[in-house]
């Protein structure tokens, strides 16, 4: 399998760019639209997803030889749910104000198809270290996407970045309203598509 021969570094970067969960794979979009209203939200949720992804990948890679094939999916779900509960409790206890801003989305990480998919496709077949880098890359890709979205929306909507007043006024409050999430994600996806089209065109010309 091609996955096994990728170096750890390649795994890491593919998670961030080629196989970026939000922009390329179009998965786990609920939080992307719903709470990418500020950079801080994006950062925190990104950290939460990173935590769950890395720990779940490592756990499954550790116990992959003991999982009975017929209860694969329930085992993945159980692992993910456990780590989600842990990070949920930790965030609620140590950053309560920011946690409230994220509402229900931390708990919803358990329903992210991307994490289950990753476990099924990668962590159940590879070593702990490889799974760790893959999980890290994927998690960071998610965080990067969320923070970019958050940056655009916070700057254009409230004129601040991470709470610091940058513009001094509010360009378009609309961007902070949740429905703008759809627009911004759609536009960013189109941008990535465009970049890909141009890149392919260039490759064809080179040949």
């Amino acid at each position, binding site marked *: 399998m091609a996955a096994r021969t990728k170096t750890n570094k390649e795994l890491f970067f593919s998670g961030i760019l080629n196989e970026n969960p939000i922009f390329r794979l179009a998965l786990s979009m*609920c939080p992307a639209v719903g709470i990418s209203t500020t950079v801080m939200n994006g950062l925190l949720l990104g950290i939460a997803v990173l935590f769950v992804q890395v720990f779940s990948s490592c756990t499954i890679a550790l116990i992959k030889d003991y999982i009975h094939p017929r209860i694969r999916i329930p085992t993945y779900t159980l692992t993910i*749910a456990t780590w*989600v509960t842990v990070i949920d409790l930790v965030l609620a206890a140590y950053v309560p104000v920011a946690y409230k801003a994220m509402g229900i989305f931390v708990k919803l990480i358990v*329903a992210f198809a991307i994490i289950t998919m990753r476990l099924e496709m990668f962590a159940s077949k590879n070593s702990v270290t490889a799974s760790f880098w893959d999980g890290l890359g994927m998690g960071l890709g998610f965080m990067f996407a969320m923070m970019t979205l958050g940056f655009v929306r916070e700057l254009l909507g409230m004129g601040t970045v991470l709470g610091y007043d940058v513009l001094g006024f509010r360009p378009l409050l609309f961007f902070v309203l949740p429905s703008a999430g759809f627009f911004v994600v759609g536009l960013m996806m189109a941008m990535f*598509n465009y970049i890909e*089209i141009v890149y392919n065109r260039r490759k064809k010309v080179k040949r």
Partner: protein
Amino acid sequence: MKERMRHLTLTGLLLAAILVSVGCDTGHRFVKKTEFKDGETIVITFAGPVDEAWAKEKANYAVYEEPDPDILLPIKEISLSPDRTKVTLSFDDGLNTRQAHVLKTKEMLSEGRSQGTAILTVKKLYFGLLLSIFIGAMVVNNFVFTKYLGLCVFFGTSQRKATAVGMGITFTIVIVFAAMMAWALYQFVLKPFQLTFLNIVVFIGLVSLSVQAVDTILRKVNPALFKAFGVYLVLVIANCIAIAVPLILADNEYTGPESFMLALGAGLGFLVALFLMSSARERLELANVPPSFRGLPIAFIVAGLFALAFLGFSGMSIH
């Protein structure tokens, strides 16, 4: 099929009748009904005519909000209907109608005879609350357009009207099932034993279980239906809404009927959202979309427009 439709409608009507009638009876043989009106008055309907002198005496009534029995609300004025069976009490400050109020009356006099004292609870019809939860989950807080949940599945199955409707119906059935089980487990197991930190695990387990259950039942009961909808069942687990509904009803401590309404509203709202989206996307396929926007990007923009439209429902309340 027609038989079944008739049965369903009859059961529905019966349920509605029960729910409505529960709100009408005050349990006192002389007081027929008490209700809020216009957010500023309380109207008492008696079973017979009351003596005008008694009815217009403010000291005969005591009104307070249920949790604050020591704060009596001052009555501004009292009016009596011409047939003397309806008394309207109006208050200075406006009533917080979301809160149940208690109305105590001194010995009621009708045609000179005493009808006893009464301690009555004035509150909005429970049915109204249920309806507002339902409309809330379906329209005002539509899970897709206002709460941004269930998007992966949403974008995946909204390309054709047929797929969209199929997914919507399957999802509604599973979510109602799962929500009721979640409510039961939460109220009778998780809360009493202080195991609420297991919420997430238990609820996702329940959703998987419901999918399995609906899968098995459908296979046996109606294979034709299973062939049409079975493929969507697996996708339900990946739907954020499926786990959001149990989490919400646990958070807000909803009762059984309220949970049912929430789940029904969420499912139907999802169906409506899917239907609207698929209608738009079928049209989009025939339109001239720029290459980098084709597929998901333009779908997102359309969804954004719908979300903007649904923003108009914000704050709407019928309760």
